[in-house]
C-alpha cells in the first residue's frame, strides 16, 4: 500500500481475485431482484431457442443450397400460410412474456406501507441521504467517493473496491420495507444498486419513489447511472444492510454525533483542529474541482486566489451561495457551521495562502444573521 509504482505495473499486478468476470445479472438479495432475474433468464432463453432455430435453418441453407454445389434455385416467393404463421406465433410468445413482466412491474410499483423512508438527493458528484423519521434529531449526511486520486491516477495500487467505496455508506435494516424518495439538486442522476434491484432517476424538482426489502446482511455497491457531468463515473453508492438492532444502534450513534456537532458549533476550536477538519471537508467536497494542491481544474485556483485571500465575508458568500451559472454550487445548505468555518480556515491557510485568518463556527452563524 502506498508504494509508488507505474500505472502499467499496477494493472499487471492486479490480483486475479478481482477478475471475477461475472457474465450475468445477479439475482441479488431481494425478492424483486430474484423475480427480475428470473424474468431476464426466461426471456433470454426464449430468445436463445428462437435464435438457434432460425440460425439452424439459415446455416443449413448456406450449407445445402450453395451454387458451388450445383444447387438450382427454385423460384417460390410467397406463401400466405407460413407468413400468417410466423406473424401469429411470435405474437403468442410475446403474450406469454408479457404476463410475468406485468406482474413483476406491478410489484416494483407497490410503494405502500414502508417502514422507513429515506430521502436520496443526487449532487454533482455525491449522494446525500436523509432519514425521514419524525422521532428525534434528524440524521442526514453526504456520501462521497472514498477512492484516492493516487489510485485513480495509477500512482498507488488500486484497492479491492476501487471506485465503488464511499466515506459514509447508506445504512439500512434488513427485512424491512425501506422506501427511497429520490431527487437531485442540480442535474439528473440515477441511483442504482444492482443487488437490491433499485434504479431510479434522481431528477431536480421532482421526487421519485422506489422501495426495497433486503433479506441478507451485507455490503452492496452500485453507481450513478445517468450521465451527470465530468465526474459521473466517480459517484458510487454503498449500502450496508444490517440487522434491525445493529441499525438502531447505528441510528442512535448518528443522532448522538449530530447533537455533539451542534454543541461543537458553539465552542471555539483550535487552529489545528480547524485545519484538520477543513482538510477533510476540502478533500471530500472541493478537491474534485479545485485540485489536491488548490491548483484549480474545473474550478479556479484556490492557491493565491484573490477571493480566498481577500475579504472574509466575500469568501464565505462565494462558498455558501455559490456562483450562479458556474459549477460552483451553493455549499451553504450542505456544510454545517463547523464544516464551513473549517473549510474557510483551511482555504485561507493552506496551499501557501498563509493569511493567518482563523474562522470560528460562531463567526459563521454571526455572518449568516448579519
Amino acid at each position: 500500500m502506498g508504494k509508488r509504482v507505474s500505472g502499467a505495473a499496477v494493472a499487471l499486478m492486479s490480483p486475479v481475485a478481482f477478475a471475477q468476470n461475472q457474465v450475468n445479472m445477479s439475482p441479488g438479495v431481494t425478492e424483486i431482484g430474484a423475480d427480475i432475474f428470473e424474468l431476464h433468464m426466461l426471456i433470454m432463453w426464449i430468445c436463445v431457442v428462437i435464435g438457434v432455430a432460425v440460425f439452424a435453418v439459415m446455416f443449413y441453407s448456406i450449407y445445402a443450397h450453395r451454387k458451388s454445389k450445383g444447387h438450382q434455385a427454385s423460384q417460390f416467393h410467397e406463401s400466405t400460410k407460413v407468413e400468417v404463421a410466423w406473424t401469429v406465433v411470435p405474437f403468442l410468445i410475446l403474450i406469454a412474456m408479457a404476463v410475468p413482466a406485468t406482474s413483476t412491474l406491478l410489484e416494483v410499483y407497490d410503494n405502500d406501507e414502508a417502514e422507513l423512508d429515506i430521502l436520496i438527493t443526487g449532487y454533482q458528484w455525491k449522494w446525500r441521504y436523509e432519514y425521514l423519521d419524525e422521532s428525534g434529531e434528524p440524521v442526514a449526511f453526504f456520501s462521497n467517493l472514498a477512492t484516492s486520486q493516487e489510485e485513480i491516477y495509477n500512482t498507488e495500487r488500486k484497492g479491492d473496491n476501487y471506485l465503488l467505496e464511499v466515506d459514509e455508506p447508506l445504512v439500512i435494516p434488513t427485512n424491512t420495507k425501506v422506501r427511497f424518495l429520490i431527487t437531485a439538486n442540480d442535474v439528473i442522476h440515477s441511483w442504482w444498486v444492482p443487488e437490491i434491484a433499485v434504479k431510479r432517476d434522481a431528477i431536480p424538482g421532482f421526487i421519485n419513489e422506489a422501495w426495497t426489502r433486503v433479506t441478507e446482511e451485507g455490503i452492496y455497491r452500485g453507481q450513478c447511472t445517468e450521465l451527470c457531468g465530468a465526474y459521473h463515473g466517480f459517484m458510487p453508492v454503498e449500502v450496508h444492510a444490517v440487522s434491525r438492532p445493529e441499525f438502531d444502534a447505528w441510528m442512535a450513534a448518528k443522532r448522538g454525533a449530530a447533537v455533539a456537532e451542534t454543541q461543537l458549533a458553539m465552542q471555539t476550536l483550535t487552529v489545528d483542529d480547524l485545519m484538520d477538519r477543513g482538510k477533510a471537508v476540502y478533500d471530500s467536497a472541493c478537491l474534485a474541482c479545485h485540485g489536491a494542491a488548490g491548483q484549480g481544474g474545473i474550478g479556479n485556483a484556490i492557491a493565491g486566489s484573490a477571493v480566498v485571500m481577500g475579504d472574509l465575508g466575500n469568501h464565505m458568500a462565494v462558498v455558501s451561495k455559490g456562483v450562479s451559472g458556474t459549477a460552483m454550487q451553493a455549499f451553504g445548505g450542505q456544510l454545517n457551521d463547523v464544516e464551513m468555518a473549517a473549510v474557510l480556515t483551511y482555504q485561507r491557510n493552506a496551499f501557501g495562502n498563509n493569511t493567518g485568518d482563523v474562522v470560528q463556527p460562531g463567526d459563521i452563524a454571526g455572518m449568516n444573521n448579519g
Partner: protein
Amino acid sequence: MGDHHHGPAQGISRWLFTTNHKDIGTMYLWFSFAMFLLGGFFAMVIRAELFQPGMQLVEPLFFNQMTTLHGLVMVFGAIMPSFVGLANWLIPMMIGAPDMALPRMNNWSFWILPPAFLMLASTLFMEGGAPAFGWTFYAPLSTTYAAPSVTFFIFAIHILGVSSIMGSINIIATVMNMRAPGMTYMKMPLFVWTWLITAFLLVAVMPVLAGAVTMMLMDIHFGTSFFSAAGGGDPVLFQHIFWFFGHPEVYIIILPAFGVVSQIIPAFSRKPLFGYASMVYATASIAFLSFIVWAHHMYTVGMPVAGELFFMYATMLIAVPTGVKVFNWISTMWRGALSFETPMLFCIGFLILFTLGGFTGLMLSIAPADFQYHDTYFVVAHFHYVMVAGAVFSMTAAVYYWLPKWCGRMYNEAMGKTHFWISFIGFNITFFPQHFVGLAGMPRRIPDYALQFADFNMMSSIGAFIYGASQLLFLYNVIATIVAGKPVSDEKVWDGAEGLEWTVPTPAPYHTFEEPPLVPKPAGTI
C-alpha cells in the same frame, strides 16, 4: 443510349454547383465515410482510455466530449448521410427517372452538411470544450450546466435537420412523381420503399428535434424554463421530446438498411425476395409503431405504471414485424443457389448480428428487467449490434454491391472477404463482452471502472482496434478499385441482380433514363 449528353463540368465547380444525382450521391458517400473515420477516431480514444482501469490518457471531461461527439458524428454524420448518398445514386436509377425531382435543393441539402460538422468539430477548441452531455443531451446538463459551445451545437443540429428534411422531401417527391410508366408502387424495389417510408419518418420527427434544441436555446439565452423545475418547467419533458424524435430516428437508420439487404440477398440467392408484399407492410407497421414506443428509453424516470405498461406492450409488438423481415430474408435464401461474394457475406453478417440486437432489444423492452439493464453497457451492446452490425454492415454491403456499377471496375474480392472477416470478428470481440459487463453492473458513459470489469474491457478495446483497422482496408480497397480495378462492362455485373439499375451501361453514364425505360417484370415476382 448513345445520345450526346452534356457531361460534367470541370474542376471544383463540378462538385460545388452540381445538380446531378450521381455526383451528389458520390459526395454524400465520401463525406459520410470521412465522418465515419472521424467518429471512429473518437471511438478509438474512448477505447484506449478504457483499455485499463485508472485514468491514463484523457481527463474525465474530455472523455465525455469524446462519447458525445462520437455518437453525434456517427449518427448524424456517418450513417444518415451515407444512406442519403445511396438514395441519391440509386432511387432515380431504380425507378427509371433521369434525376431527383428537386436537383438544386439536392445540391443545397448536401452542401450545408460540411459547414455544420465543421462547426460541431470546432467546439473541441472552444473554451469549456465541446458538448459533453451525451448524444442524447438531456437537460439540464445540456442547458444550465453546459459549456458555452452548446450554442454552436444547437446551430449545427438545426442545419443537419434542415438538410435531412430537404433530402427527405426530395426523395418523397421523386418517388411519387418520377416513376417510369408501369413502375407501380407495388413494383418498386424494396430499397425505394424503405426509403420512401423513412423519408416520411424524417419529415415527421426532424422538426421535433429542432423544437427540442430551440427550447434549449431559449432556456440558455432567453430566460425561459422549459426544462428547469425551478422555473416551473420539467427536465423529463426534454426526454419525452427527444425520444419522440429519437426512437423513430433509430428506425430512420435501420429501414434503408433493411432495403439494401432486401436487394442483395435475392441477388446472391438467385431467387426473388420472399414475401415482397409482407415486407412492405412490415416496414410500414414498424414505422407506425416507432411513434408510440419512445418512452421505453425512459422506464426509470418514474412514469406512472399505466404508462410503463403501455410503452412496454407497444415496444414488444415491434418484434413481430421485425421478425417477419428476418424470416423473409432467410426464406429468400432457402433453396436458392447461394454464392458468397463480399456483399452477400456482409448481408449474412447483418442477418445474424442484427437478429442478436433484436433479441436484446426485446429483452430491454421488458420494463422491470430494464430497471437492471438501463444505462449499462448492455444497452451499449444492444445498439451497436443494431446500428453497426445492422446499418453499417448493410451500408458496406451496398458499397461492394453497387461500386462496380458506379465506376465500371471490380473491387478485389479477396481483399473484400478479408475485410468482412476482420470486421465480423473484430466487431464481436468488441461488443459481445459488453453484454457481460453490462449485466454485471457496469454503467455506460464512465471514463474509469471497477476492477472486476477489467478483462472484458481490455478485450473490447482490442476488438475495437481490430475493427477500426479493418475500415482502412476497406478505404484502400475502394480507392484501389476506382483507380485501377479490373474493368467490367456487363450491364448486369452480378448474374443474379434484378432491377432497372442493372439495365443501364456499366459504368453508369452521367445521365441515365432521359427516356423513361420499359418497366420489366415487377420486383418481387418472377
